[in-house]
């Protein structure tokens, strides 16, 4: 379980997280939605200690990771798989080497075991046979899938997805969504995804949390979020620029 307590973070004096309190339960997939620049990726990076908060606590499996040093964080981070927005594949390595990287770093697997696991992960994401390619030879969608393969190959307990479908066409985006669901069912991982893509959020989420003005504004199941009358949530999920229109439409709906 991951528990976030009164998490605060600011950059150059501008507050991004203004006291986030939230819990992520074992085995569920939580999607965090919110406006661009609203601190979603910042929140995600705090979960595995990639960023240090100004104040607050992040508990991973009953251990507060905030005071830990980089070296103390290493074993905690190995519980996580992270799909970065741009996939963040290592340019100098082939696709196979990229996916094998977390396994090789653990130094507990034989080369045969690594080869078997990497090929299995590449097959799951539909990239079987592409292991010899360098990241520069891959399309955006292939990079995302390769990043996903690298994130899951070590069978982590927690999977963090930063904008898993951003920049992909609807069909590719749905492929990624299906992959996330398949991975959840196959490995029973706890997932946290950050996205603006509401179709993706409704599809993969057990719960959706909206981050607004540095705090968790609303939490609910996809059905609850779709049915909400909260004007801020409705404005976001329906993509309405002017909130006064949404307040009026919300009032009309309520009455």
């Amino acid at each position, binding site marked *: 379980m991951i528990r976030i307590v009164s998490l605060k973070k600011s950059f150059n004096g501008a507050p991004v997280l203004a006291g986030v309190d939230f819990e992520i339960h074992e085995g569920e997939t939580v999607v965090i939605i919110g406006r661009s620049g609203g601190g979603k990726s910042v929140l995600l*990076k705090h979960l595995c200690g990639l960023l240090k908060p100004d104040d607050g606590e992040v508990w991973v499996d009953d251990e507060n990771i905030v005071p830990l040093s980089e070296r103390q964080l290493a074993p*905690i981070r190995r519980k996580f798989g*992270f799909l*970065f927005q741009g996939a*963040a594949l290592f340019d100098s390595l082939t696709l196979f080497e990229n996916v094998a990287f977390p396994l090789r770093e653990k130094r507990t697997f034989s080369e045969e075991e690594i080869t078997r696991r990497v090929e299995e992960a590449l097959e799951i994401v539909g990239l079987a046979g592409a292991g010899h390619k360098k990241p520069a030879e891959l399309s955006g969608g292939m990079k995302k899938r390769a990043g996903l393969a690298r994130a899951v190959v070590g069978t982590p307990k927690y999977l*963090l997805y930063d904008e898993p479908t951003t920049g992909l066409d609807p069909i590719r985006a749905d492929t990624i969504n299906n992959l996330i669901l398949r991975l959840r069912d196959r490995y029973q991982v706890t997932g946290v995804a950050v996205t603006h893509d509401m179709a993706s959020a409704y599809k993969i989420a057990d719960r959706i949390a909206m981050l607004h003005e540095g705090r968790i504004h609303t939490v609910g199941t996809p059905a609850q979020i779709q049915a909400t009358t909260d004007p801020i949530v409705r404005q976001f999920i329906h993509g309405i620029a002017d909130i006064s229109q949404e307040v009026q439409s919300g009032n009309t709906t309520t009455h």
Partner: protein
Amino acid sequence: MLRAMSDLLKRLWQNLLGLVSQFGGVLLLFLDIVRTIFTCRPRMGETVEQLYKIGWQSQAVVVITGAFTGMVFAVQTGLQFHKVKMDTAVGPVVAIAMLRELAPVLTGLMVAGRVGAAIAAELGTMKVTEQLDALRSMGTSPTDYLAAPRFCALVLGLPMLTAEAMACGIGAGFLVAVHMLNIDPAYYWYNMLKFTAVKDVMAGLIKSVFFAVFIALIACHKGFNAEEGAEGVGRATTQAVVVSSLTILIANFFIAVVFNAIVPI
């Protein structure tokens, strides 16, 4: 007037703080690398790969730099010494200059330009494309995986390149002196050996180890701290080359003074 002075002082103070902060960052990186080298598993594969990139692939640049520096130095000293009938002193002058100063400094500057820039650009690009975060997210320290192998490769490679530059400079100087300035090769060689010693070679090689440490630390630090975007990577690369080159030139003077005090010429 008072306001302008106050602004100037404030800016100077901020620059000083920035400089102290940069120096602190470099020092912490150095301590982290030393800890990695002595406590963690060595990454031999990455170190050998970097040694190939940093050492082997820099040879052409270093050989040309060393050879032509030795040649031009032989020509200039030969023409001057000829006026006072000291032609055979060209050998020791070229040799000592190459061994103690020119080979280590020029090799350091060439490597700072070629390798320092490459390291800062590569690590900077990794920073802005979240590859460093990806490494950290997998429990791998960028210091262990990226900085320590580059540091070790430079500390091993730069003295070897410096030795190569020394040999090329002295050899090319000899050829120019003998074939262009018509200096007797036997006298040239005899005088060169008479006035040079192992300590001259050691002075140059020890300097090159210091220069390697400066280049590796500054380039890695600038790369790891590159700001967002292509402009940030470009700025980090430029700063890595400029700062490491200036550090080499300034440190060279102090190392020479200290070395001469310990082991007089």
